[in-house]
């Protein structure tokens, strides 16, 4: 609380980006965890809640006659524009938020104070919902070819890997340790996915420290062991997800990629996915396009093209498709790596798994997938999503891109996924919200040290409890799209990749389809059930009535009593019935200004109840990591020095600087 200079400011205006006419007047509150805007004088209290952890940037703009504008960009892509009457108040709010949005200790994060009123047992049950050992068992492991290794117990070999790692049976501890010494950050090849139908597998690692000529016998044996674990195939693919140029530049720093001459029976392949810095800048450019005030179609398409965002999404998808095809169609195992093997590798392995195995397209399976490929293998959530104040150059929308890949697939295969778009949006929200402990820290080791499971709650349990909201009504477990591998079109079908306004403009409800097919079908399903029950009751009643030949009048009144109204809301009619500004000319014309009806924006309402249930659609908030502060990191300072192995930066930043 000591950081709050100004707990309450009155007469603040909240502006609407799409319509300048729709500003709301209200009071702004700063609390230990949220920024809250409460609108004046409306019958239903309209409130906007923003978690401090969602704030990505705060910008104080030049004072105008009406007050001092404050622009808050959030990591979940909400943009809030406030106008505070007094410059002094605005400054205090600004200074307070700057501090509140950048906690320095994990203990300051919301998950340590968030209490969904569950007892200890329920909390423990929640954490047990996703169990990775169970998942490897489901894949059919351990078996004759693969086993669990305890070589990394106490994180002795690799501190960013989990303690339990699955490796080929023929890979001895000696081979693993030897191989780990020849890999960046000791991230040796380990199993990510195993296809029990044909023994092909997806393994992951970091880049080898091969430089220009270095070799490592154990590492070569390790790759041999992976190949032997798939007796049906006489080679493995080694997929380096970086652009070739980046990988080559790494050789000069003693890192690099596998030389086909040194490793027997490998086929080496580059897949050019750009590094985290390129992705960060790309997202920032795309968000600038999203924020344009009444852009023309050309502005928008040009900006989208210029941001390169969809090109990057497609590159990740293409890599996933390549691997899925190798495993499913060729029956060949694949080793995937990038530089450190925790960003692009995680993206590509999880996309491939999703294409290969229908289980990951179920709600539970998707949680397992994120837990397996992202959380357990040391994706640096804290650094990438800026949970604690840190180096802005570490921030990058890596998992956001994966989530978008899933959405793009959902658009192409509408019946293939058990969950809906809302599920993805809520997961994205909670990766940044720090309301649950799942995505804290950078590795399993750190999470265990912090005793996350004893002190915070699991998001998966929360989502699972509300799973009815996240169902895709078109999903059927016996549908052809839910069987086997998803065969995404291999031809370069650029048009399949679309801008995801449901995510990046998610708070601008006016831009979205005004009627939701998903919600409608879910309602139909529910109503059908209810009405069937109702029918049964009424049927019995009628039968009784006919039997006893009751008096007409008496009967009628009772029926009316029973006559039940069911709400089948098909659209946000208040919104549907509100035109946007199609013309500026009309403003100046003496308008009879018809009442605009009820224009409440459900996106911005949050009652106390909603807060408790932490529905991110309602707890309004934030944009992503590349806010204005990040502008500085567009042009990397420094220059020629190549980061050393332990510089804490992504290894192929070398290329970013050098090229």
């Amino acid at each position, binding site marked *: 609380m000591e950081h709050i200079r100004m707990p309450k400011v009155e007469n603040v205006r909240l502006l609407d980006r799409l319509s300048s006419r729709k500003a709301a007047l209200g009071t702004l509150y700063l609390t230990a965890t949220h920024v809250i805007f409460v609108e004046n004088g409306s019958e239903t209290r309209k409130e906007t809640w923003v978690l401090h952890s969602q704030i990505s940037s705060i910008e104080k703009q030049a004072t105008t006659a009406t007050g001092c504008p404050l622009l808050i960009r959030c990591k979940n892509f909400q943009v809030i524009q406030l106008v505070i009457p007094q410059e002094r108040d605005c400054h205090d709010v600004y200074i307070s938020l700057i501090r509140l949005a950048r906690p320095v200790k994990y203990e300051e994060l919301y998950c340590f104070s968030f209490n969904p009123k569950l007892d200890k047992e329920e909390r423990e049950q929640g954490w047990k919902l996703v169990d990775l050992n169970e998942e490897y068992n489901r894949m059919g492991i351990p078996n004759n070819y693969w086993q669990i290794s305890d070589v990394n117990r106490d994180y002795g070999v690799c501190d960013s890997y989990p303690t339990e790692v699955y490796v080929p049976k023929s890979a001895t501890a000696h081979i693993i340790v030897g191989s780990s010494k020849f890999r960046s950050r000791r991230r040796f090849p380990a199993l990510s996915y195993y296809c029990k139908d044909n023994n092909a597998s997806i393994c992951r690692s970091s880049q080898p420290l091969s430089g220009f000529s270095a070799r490592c016998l154990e590492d070569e044996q390790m790759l041999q062991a992976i190949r032997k674990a798939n007796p049906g195939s006489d080679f493995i693919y080694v997929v380096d997800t970086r652009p070739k140029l980046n990988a080559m530049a790494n050789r000069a720093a003693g890192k690099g990629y596998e030389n086909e001459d040194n490793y027997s029976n490998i086929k080496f392949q580059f897949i050019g996915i750009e590094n985290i810095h390129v992705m960060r800048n790309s997202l920032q450019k795309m968000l600038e396009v999203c924020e344009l005030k009444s852009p023309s179609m*050309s502005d928008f398409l040009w900006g989208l093209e210029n941001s390169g965002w969809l090109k990057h999404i497609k590159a990740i998808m293409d890599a996933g498709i390549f691997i899925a095809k190798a495993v499913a169609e060729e029956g060949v195992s694949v080793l995937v790596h990038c530089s450190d093997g925790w960003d692009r590798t995680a993206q590509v392995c999880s996309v491939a798994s999703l294409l290969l195995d229908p289980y990951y397209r179920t709600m539970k399976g998707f949680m397992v997938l994120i837990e397996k490929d992202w959380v357990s293998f040391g994706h640096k959530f804290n650094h990438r999503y800026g949970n604690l104040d840190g180096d802005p150059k570490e921030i990058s929308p890596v998992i956001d891109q994966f989530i978008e890949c899933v959405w793009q697939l959902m658009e192409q295969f509408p019946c293939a996924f058990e969950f809906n778009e809302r599920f993805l949006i809520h997961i994205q929200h909670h990766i940044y919200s720090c309301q649950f402990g799942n995505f804290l820290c950078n590795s399993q080791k750190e999470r265990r040290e912090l005793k996350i499971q004893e002190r915070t709650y699991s998001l998966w349990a929360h989502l699972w409890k509300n799973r009815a909201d996240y169902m895709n009504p078109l999903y059927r477990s016996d549908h052809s799209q839910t069987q086997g591998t998803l065969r995404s079109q291999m031809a370069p*079908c650029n048009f399949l990749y679309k801008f995801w306004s449901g995510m990046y403009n998610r708070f601008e409800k006016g831009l979205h389809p005004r009627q939701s097919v998903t919600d409608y079908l879910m309602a139909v399903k529910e109503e059908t059930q209810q*009405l069937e029950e109702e*029918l049964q009751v*009424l049927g019995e009643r009628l039968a009784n009535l006919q039997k006893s030949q009751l008096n007409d009048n008496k009967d009628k009144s009772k029926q009316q009593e029973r006559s039940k109204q069911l709400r089948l809301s*098909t659209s946000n*009619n208040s919104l*549907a019935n509100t035109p946007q500004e199609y013309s500026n000319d009309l403003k100046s014309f003496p308008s009879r200004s018809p009442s605009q009806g009820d224009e409440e924006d459900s996106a911005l309402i949050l009652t106390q109840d909603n807060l408790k249930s932490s529905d991110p659609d309602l707890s309004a908030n934030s944009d992503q990591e590349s806010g204005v502060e990040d502008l500085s990191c567009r042009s990397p300072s420094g220059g020629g020095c190549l980061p050393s192995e332990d510089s804490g930066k992504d290894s192929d930043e070398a290329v970013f600087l050098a090229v």
Partner: protein
Amino acid sequence: MEFSELIKTATVENVLLSCAGLPAVKGTLCITSHHLLLSSCPGGDGQAGTVELWLLIRNVDAVEKRLANSSGTITLRCKDLKVLQLEIPGMEECLNIASSIEVRFWVGSEPGPSHARVQRLAGESGRLQWLEAPPILWGSPSSGCPPSLAPQAMLRSSQPLTGPNRKRCREDETLLGTVLDEGERGFIIDTRSAQAAKQARMTGGGTEPKSSYPQWRRLHRPLERGRPLQESFIKLVDACNDTAINMDRWLNRLESCRWLSHVKAALSTACLAAQCMDREEANVLVHGAEGTDTTLLVTALAQVILDPSCRTLVGFQGLLEREWIEAGHPFHLRCARSAYSHARLKQEAPLFLLFLDCVWQLSRQFPFSLEFSECLLLTLFDNAYASAYGTFLCNNEKERCLCKVKENTHSLWAWLNQPGERKKYLNPLYLPNALVIWPSVEPQSIQLWQGLFFRWIRSSQYLDEAWAEIQRKVGSGLVQQINKKHQNWVCVCHLENNDWLLRFQPVQGQT
């Protein structure tokens, strides 16, 4: 000369037909006065005698032939954007077939009676015609109350012939004056830029000067028409067919063809017209130059937005009949060529397609509010460009009269409305919505109509499966179930406080 006399080779054996996304078929090719037929070889893969292709020759937009050794390949690019390849054994046969097709579509494309004269007919008073006020329903239909507000009228016309000397026309001023009560104001939406409207004076046209029409406020909303629109269409189809381009290049070409900009502009202008009527409660007059192209685009779209009765299958057909066909959109000229034709004619412009695209955008944003499905829009596109029916023939009523279209051809509507056929065009999600449907016209909300532009390029299997699934879910829906299960009870759906309510109640008169 009868076309059949021009057919030098009527049938060829062993022709290989290939079309993107489908397995190639070998069969006998046959050319008739109107159709190109291909039936698979008896004993081949297909069933003996099965007709594999039944192509209206009018549907052919461009023919390319390539000869090699003793055979030849004909590529047919169709107006509905499909591309077919025929491999024909025998060079002479190939040339004959190609020339027959070429001749056929030239014969078919001869312009009808001079349209220029027809347009001049109405030129005297400066106005082409009136549109009666659309039957807009206000308030909730369940109440059954007559509209309590004074209904507003939407009018359309051509430009006034003010000319370089700023001529006035008393009758025209009086005509427009009678629409408005004293003190009332109306809007004129001119679909040209202020500059273009001014320039039109040099050729005898112009726009309403404020001084002569003081109660009317003029708004200029330039919409693309004519050749630039046709070129936009051609460029878009080109980009869609180029599967070798990368993502950046694709977005670049999508942007530079400007098709989506035209969609956005048309929707925005229609919304403006609708807004003037619904929100400003004012009368609206829409015109461009001739009043037969962009004018109709705006008035027809505005009616779909405002009027729930235009959103039913029958209502939409009525709208097309009234706002496009009877209003004299020159279909024959505008739809003579599609995106593949190399012939550079001046009169082609895909205004009707643009309209269909805008309606599709509405259906995407309001998936429950249109009774018809995408399938109807596609069928209308196909028939506007090449049809076995007379509905879209000629350029206006007068020509249709002269050609006795009604006596000599069948109506597309009659075909579509047959019980068996009708089902195909219905939207399974339709729930009548009495409200005005205001679309978003932000670029984020406007999408490329993949169902049309990629119809022959990608497989729509997974999306079709999704629709089948929706149909399954809704088809077995509650209303039907309940009505079937219990005849003494009905489930009614009506509007109350802006929400659709399902009320479950006993049938009247029953206990």
